[in-house]
């Protein structure tokens, strides 16, 4: 299988490569439109800040390329947030694969921000969640979130807010948590993205 990881200035690509390698897959890190178009699967990781990431994608012309991809596409963390219409992080217009905006956590003082650590995902019956056990804990690190919407297939609660932890629309998937850092649960979800969807 030909897997492409979108190369842009929002790091931690190595963790994704390591997780894929543990599953027996190799991936190519690329920002070449041709390679992205030809891949069987595209993974869009991300740790960083929305406006800087969007500026980079636009400069490279990648915003249009990503939006028009037809194969299964998975955004992770910031990658998922960039797939919304708009992010409150530095008021940034985003790629718009999902019909929803990304907003900042506003929580009572006792809730720390970022939402950092292990939390549970409540999942629907999407094939991305095939073969998962009952306990569905995933590792999150984020200060902004995508509210629940029509495209939500997995949700998580923090500080009284139930937000989208997994989104799906057509060929586009997004995870707010880091599957590459979420132990067996994360590896199963990555494996499903490669083999079940």
């Amino acid at each position, binding site marked *: 299988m030909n897997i492409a990881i979108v190369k842009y200035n929002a*790091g*931690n690509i*190595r*963790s994704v490569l*390591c*997780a894929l*390698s*543990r599953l027996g897959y190799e991936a190519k890190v690329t920002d070449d439109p041709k390679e992205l178009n030809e891949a069987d699967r595209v993974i869009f990781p991300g*740790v*960083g*800040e929305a406006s800087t990431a969007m500026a980079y994608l636009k400069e490279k012309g990648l915003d249009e390329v990503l939006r028009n991809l037809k194969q299964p596409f998975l955004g992770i963390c910031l990658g998922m947030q960039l797939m919304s219409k708009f992010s409150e992080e530095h008021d940034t217009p985003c790629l718009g694969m999902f019909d929803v905006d990304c907003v900042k956590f506003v929580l009572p*003082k006792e809730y*720390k*921000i*970022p*939402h*950092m*650590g*292990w*939390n*549970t995902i409540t999942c629907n019956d999407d094939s991305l969640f095939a073969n998962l056990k009952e*306990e569905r*804990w995933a*590792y999150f*690190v984020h200060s902004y979130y995508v509210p629940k919407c029509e495209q939500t297939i997995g949700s998580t*609660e*923090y500080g009284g807010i139930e937000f989208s932890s997994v989104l799906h629309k057509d060929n586009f998937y997004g995870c707010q948590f*880091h599957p*590459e*850092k*979420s*132990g*067996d649960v*994360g*590896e199963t979800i990555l494996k499903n993205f490669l083999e079940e969807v």
Partner: protein
Amino acid sequence: MLAKRIIPCLDVRDGRTVKGINFINLRDAGDAVELAEAYSRYGADELTFLDITATVENRGTFRTLVRSIADHIGIPFTVGGGIRTEDDVAALLDSGADKISINSQAVAKASVIDDLALRFGSQCVVCAIDARRNPAFDKDGQDGWEVYVHGGRKSTGIEVISWAKEAYSRGAGEILLTSMEHDGVKQGFAVDLTRRVSEAVGIPVIASGGAGTMEHFTEVFTEGKADAALAASIFHFHEIDIPELKIFLAQHGITMRKQ
């Protein structure tokens, strides 16, 4: 609901773990990667590796080790010890570490925290604080604590709560708070100090130093308001095993990740 985290800490010298770690079924007890995999299997929520290598020449060994850890384990890990420059941080993050912890370096030059947070993001900047009681800092009937550096050997004249607040405002993403008074004594964490730091900052606080019993973890998570608890020898020597600890804590109403 967000779970409280249990974090074993491993000291690494010249690429190998130190302390007579005694884990079941390990071919090589000094092999940090094998140990990390074992902890990951036994339910550790995160791992911390402290490089106590004495020489600069052997720093490269630690980076190689970090790459190997990232290859093998699928949970987050923090690395610390001997970090001097932004390039050191970049090399460790590129090698696959999720977070780095800084201590003496941040006290010497606080703007390091701003620089690292700006370049790499707050989520990967852990500010480690080593605290010792100092009655000179007592105020309003509350115990005063002083920041120590260089492995707890050197005093700084800085009060702990104010330093934690400063680290937070400069962009640290987490505080790793170690009570040097409690460390190694196994009489419980510095619960009162942990609570005060946790209430003073808007970022997660990892409590460290003093774990001896499972009840100590309950205390630091409830009264101490810690978001995570770190320990070393009690895990390494099987005085407390993580699966049993997590069951115990869950029975006491503390949210724990189950595998």
